[in-house]
């Protein structure tokens, strides 16, 4: 349990540290150190859980099993690599005079605050606290989205705040309904919001209430996942905030929201004895997947384009989790991992690309491979990976999801394939001139730290070629937990 | 037979005491505004003076113009005859329920508006059109408020409704609170009080009711004025006796009747003070704000009905 406390306390401490010394030049290094310590604690936690099985903290406040511990580790890892990237990136932004000292303090403090909120959401056993932490994650990031104080940034942040706030309010109502149903069967009302208690008593919960509750929970957490038609905040928030923010929003926050939704689905499935929750998730997931793929074609802003790609992939994962079954769930878990690794790598390169061109407009970013080959190649490989080319891990997970679909819902396979093709075309149509085109005069090389990108893409490649045994074991434990059957 | 006799007596009491209520309201208002107040029976003096005076008829006045005061007065008395004043058990209530009551008042309004247009002066037509607009908006509110009540009491018969509230004892009904507020706002609009209309004004831009009856004189004017006073009292008695029926006589003893008279007197006096308080704090609103005012009243009545369905019976 010490590992758990450390995982939570280090970012909590980081909030204060960031607020105190965030404006200093070495603050970026402090941020890296803090996230590195968190990663160490998270890995220690992962090791304990894998070694000894699910753990319930004293007081039943936290519950760690294979499903969330792998997300904790992933979150801590991406948090660290993004912190490495953010150090140079933010220094560059300060040099360009887009940010002052106070905002750097705010940035570093809230970076840690955001990490804390996500760890709290992932590890908590109380579905009420889960809600509080999700809302906390919104509150921590909303001022970061408006960090540049341009009218666009303010608009994006306002939209983000209002839409996510209203959306997540629905989730709270769903939680209230869940509590309402639970209170009737669970003797101690203080236990009635604990996930493990709810899960154990799921079959006794009143199905009508849980159906209603799940609809509200889906709308609520679905807003945060970015499901169409509740996705409007997502591209704005990604495109107007600082790029490290986009990387962790896309790579981590969406995952955590989806995690919350899946946890809820596990309870609801136990009560309903029908596949209703799964159908709903499949419907919303498929819709998001297809619509976002189409929107990819119309984008003019590079970060906006990749945020639509995030919506598309989140849609695919939601669809896969909705599909249920061991294979699809395994695929979805793998896809969560590879997507957040790839997408944060892409946002890191996109951040550098935008600094090279001095703009985020796709039309003005040209010939990256000539100006700075590392960034150009990074962007190209990242896009290839995210589009689902073998041998990258995204291909593996998409292949698993497709196979599972073909098994249980064959007629849904063509739309999935078409959606993948549309998204692929949308990405590459914009990508090609950006990477290969003529570099306009006056493009400057920037100090880019490509280590995070390299690490992430290497991981994705590794996962595509061979999933290491301990990881496969880990995933199959989580799959067993979620879908009830083992994939291997 | 006795019941009917008592009913007629009660109606007579209603008609006769309406100017007294008007006098009371005027007095309170004067006190509120630090003016020298007229005597309580000043409205009786005014009516008597007008009744003695000769009628001056416009050249183009048709029979509508001449018949209207009598129709309005008659319809208003009939409306008054339906409302339980002192005795809860009113035989006329079985014949004519609350919807008929609304109908009588609408009939009176219709003829007043016709008469306003009959002469062909600009003011009359203007007043009529304004009055009809207010009426069209106020009537649904009134009906909605009344339906809320009848849904709770399962009757549109006013006597039975009063009996129902009496038997239930003190029950905090959210629907009644809203219906009461809605009905009060309608009463203000329908009887031409501030902020919708000002009974004391002859300023051309703002008058509504006064504009329609501008051409009346002598006994015609007396009847119309009297009818207006009865109408005000009908609304106030309705509010007082339906929502707070305590004190109303349920049996036919002198003691109960005396108590009933005292109770309704006290309630009306109190309501009069409330009305004046309201008139003092409110400013006359521009005519095109009136739909908003009545829209809010409608909302209150609607909310009354909704809370009845949702909170009081649901589940």
């Amino acid at each position: 349990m010490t590992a758990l406390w450390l995982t939570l306390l280090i970012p909590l401490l980081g909030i204060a540290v960031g607020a105190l010394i965030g404006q200093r030049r070495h603050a970026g290094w402090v941020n890296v150190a803090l996230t590195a310590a968190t990663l160490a604690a998270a890995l220690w936690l992962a090791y304990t859980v894998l070694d000894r099985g699910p753990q319930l903290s004293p007081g039943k406040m936290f519950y760690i099993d294979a499903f969330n511990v792998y997300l904790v580790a992933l979150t801590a890892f991406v948090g660290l690599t993004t912190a490495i990237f953010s150090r140079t990136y933010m220094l560059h932004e300060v040099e360009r005079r887009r940010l002052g000292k106070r905002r750097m303090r705010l940035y570093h403090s809230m970076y840690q605050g955001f990490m804390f909120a996500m760890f709290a959401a992932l590890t908590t056993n109380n579905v009420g606290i889960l809600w509080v932490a999700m809302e906390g994650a919104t509150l921590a990031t909303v001022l970061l989205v408006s960090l540049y104080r341009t009218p666009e940034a303010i608009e994006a942040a306002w939209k983000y705040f209002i839409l996510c706030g209203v959306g997540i309010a629905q989730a709270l109502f769903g939680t209230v309904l869940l509590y309402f149903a639970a209170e009737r069967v669970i003797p101690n009302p203080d236990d009635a919001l604990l996930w493990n208690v709810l899960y154990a008593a799921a079959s006794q919960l009143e199905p009508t209430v849980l159906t209603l509750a799940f609809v509200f929970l889906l709308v609520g957490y679905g807003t945060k996942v970015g499901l169409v038609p509740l996705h409007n905040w997502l591209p704005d928030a990604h495109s107007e905030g600082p790029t490290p923010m986009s990387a962790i929003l896309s790579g981590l926050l969406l995952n955590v929201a989806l995690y919350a939704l899946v946890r809820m689905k596990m309870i609801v499935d136990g009560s309903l004895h029908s596949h209703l929750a799964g159908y709903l998730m499949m419907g919303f997931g498929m819709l998001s997947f297809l619509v976002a793929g189409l929107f990819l074609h119309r984008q003019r802003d590079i970060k906006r384009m990749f945020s639509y790609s995030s919506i598309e992939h989140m849609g695919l994962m939601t669809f896969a989790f909705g599909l249920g079954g061991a294979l699809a769930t395994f695929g979805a878990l793998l896809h969560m991992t590879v997507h957040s690794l790839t997408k944060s790598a892409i946002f890191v390169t996109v951040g550098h690309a935008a600094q090279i061109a001095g703009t985020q407009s796709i039309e003005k970013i040209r010939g990256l491979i000539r100006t700075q080959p590392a960034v150009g190649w990074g962007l190209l490989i990242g896009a290839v990976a995210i589009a689902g080319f073998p041998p990258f891990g995204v291909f593996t997970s998409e292949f698993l999801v497709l196979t599972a679909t073909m098994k249980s819902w064959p007629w849904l396979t063509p739309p999935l394939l078409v959606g993948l093709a549309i998204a692929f075309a949308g990405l590459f149509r914009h990508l090609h001139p950006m990477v290969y085109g003529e570099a306009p005069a006056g493009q400057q090389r920037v100090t880019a730290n490509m280590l995070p990108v390299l690490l992430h893409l290497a991981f994705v490649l590794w996962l595509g070629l061979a999933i290491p045994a301990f990881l496969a074991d880990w995933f199959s434990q989580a799959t067993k937990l979620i879908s009830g059957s083992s994939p291997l | 037979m006795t019941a009917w006799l008592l009913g007629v007596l009660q109606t007579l009491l209603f008609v006769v005491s309406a100017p007294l209520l008007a006098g009371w309201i005027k007095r309170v208002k004067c006190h509120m505004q630090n003016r020298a107040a007229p005597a309580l029976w000043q409205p009786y003096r005014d009516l008597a003076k007008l009744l003695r005076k000769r009628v001056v008829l416009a050249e183009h006045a048709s029979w509508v113009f001449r018949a209207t005061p009598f129709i309005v007065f008659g319809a208003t008395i009939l409306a008054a005859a339906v409302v339980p004043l002192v005795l809860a058990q009113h035989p006329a209530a079985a014949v004519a329920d609350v919807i008929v009551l609304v109908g009588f008042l609408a009939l009176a309004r219709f003829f007043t508006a016709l008469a306003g247009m009959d002469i062909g002066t600009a003011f009359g037509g203007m007043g009529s059109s304004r009055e009809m607009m207010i009426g069209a908006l106020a009537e649904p509110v009134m009906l909605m408020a009344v339906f809320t009540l009848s849904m709770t009491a399962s009757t549109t018969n006013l006597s039975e409704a009063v009996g129902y509230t009496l038997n239930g004892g003190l029950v905090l009904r959210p629907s009644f609170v809203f219906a009461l507020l809605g009905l009060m706002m309608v009463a203000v609009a329908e009887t031409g009080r501030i902020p919708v209309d000002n009974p004391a004004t002859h300023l051309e831009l703002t008058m509504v009711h006064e504009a329609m009856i501008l051409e009346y004189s002598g006994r015609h004017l007396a009847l119309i004025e009297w009818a207006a006073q009865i109408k005000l009292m009908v609304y106030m008695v309705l509010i007082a006796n339906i929502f707070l029926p305590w004190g109303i006589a349920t049996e036919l003893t002198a003691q109960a009747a005396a108590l009933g008279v005292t109770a309704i007197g006290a309630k009306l006096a109190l309501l009069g003070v409330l009305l004046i308080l309201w008139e003092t704090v409110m400013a006359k609103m521009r005519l095109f704000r009136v739909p908003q005012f009545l829209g809010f009243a409608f909302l209150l009545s609607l909310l009354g009905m909704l809370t009845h369905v949702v909170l009081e019976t649901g589940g």
Partner: protein
Amino acid sequence: MDLTQLGLFDQAVLLFAAFVLFTSFVMLAQARIVPLIHTFAWQGALLAVTTALVAYATRHPHLYLSAGITLILKAALIPWLLHRLTVRLGIQREVEALAYPTLVLIAGGALVIFSYYVALPIVQLSAMVTRNTIAAGIAIVLLGMLLMIVRKKAISQVIGFMSIENGLFFAAVVSTYGMPMVVELGIAFDVLVAAVLFGVFFFQMRASIDSLDVDRLNRLREVDEPAPAPEETAP
């Protein structure tokens, strides 16, 4: 359920629930900023009274604490914050032009009916005296959303947001006699932080677009803007 068979305090709970619902409607109709904030404060106060009544009528003493938190937070602190903001931003005399006021109120009525149908399955399961007010809780949430949709001023939207929170709290109190304390404290903390953040936002918004009109925030759109004139490409 027959109202006449309930105790006086249970009836009072229903009555105050109706008043809380009523304040939501008043907020929909209120165009001036400061009275809007006051109405919001009244809603908070009535909510606290309702909670205290539920606590008394059903003997759930822990709800007194919730009522106290609500009173301090929703009836005093947040309205005070908002009021101070309007004074500091100099907008306390602003009046918002309401589009279709009557239609909005009718829509509000329709939302109440809708909430009634949504709540029916839950109400039928429950045996609590407060069960009928669950629909009122949902209605307050939906009316808050309606307020956010029809209003253009940022401050009105914030009040809509906060009144959604009120509705959720209300629903939790009347359907389950409140959430566990730790969750309630967490929610209260979130709401407070959100209120402060909104305040920060008003200033940012004013500084960048010189207005608190949300309609002015319209730069980010999905429609294809006319492409900027092609720039000279390097030879």
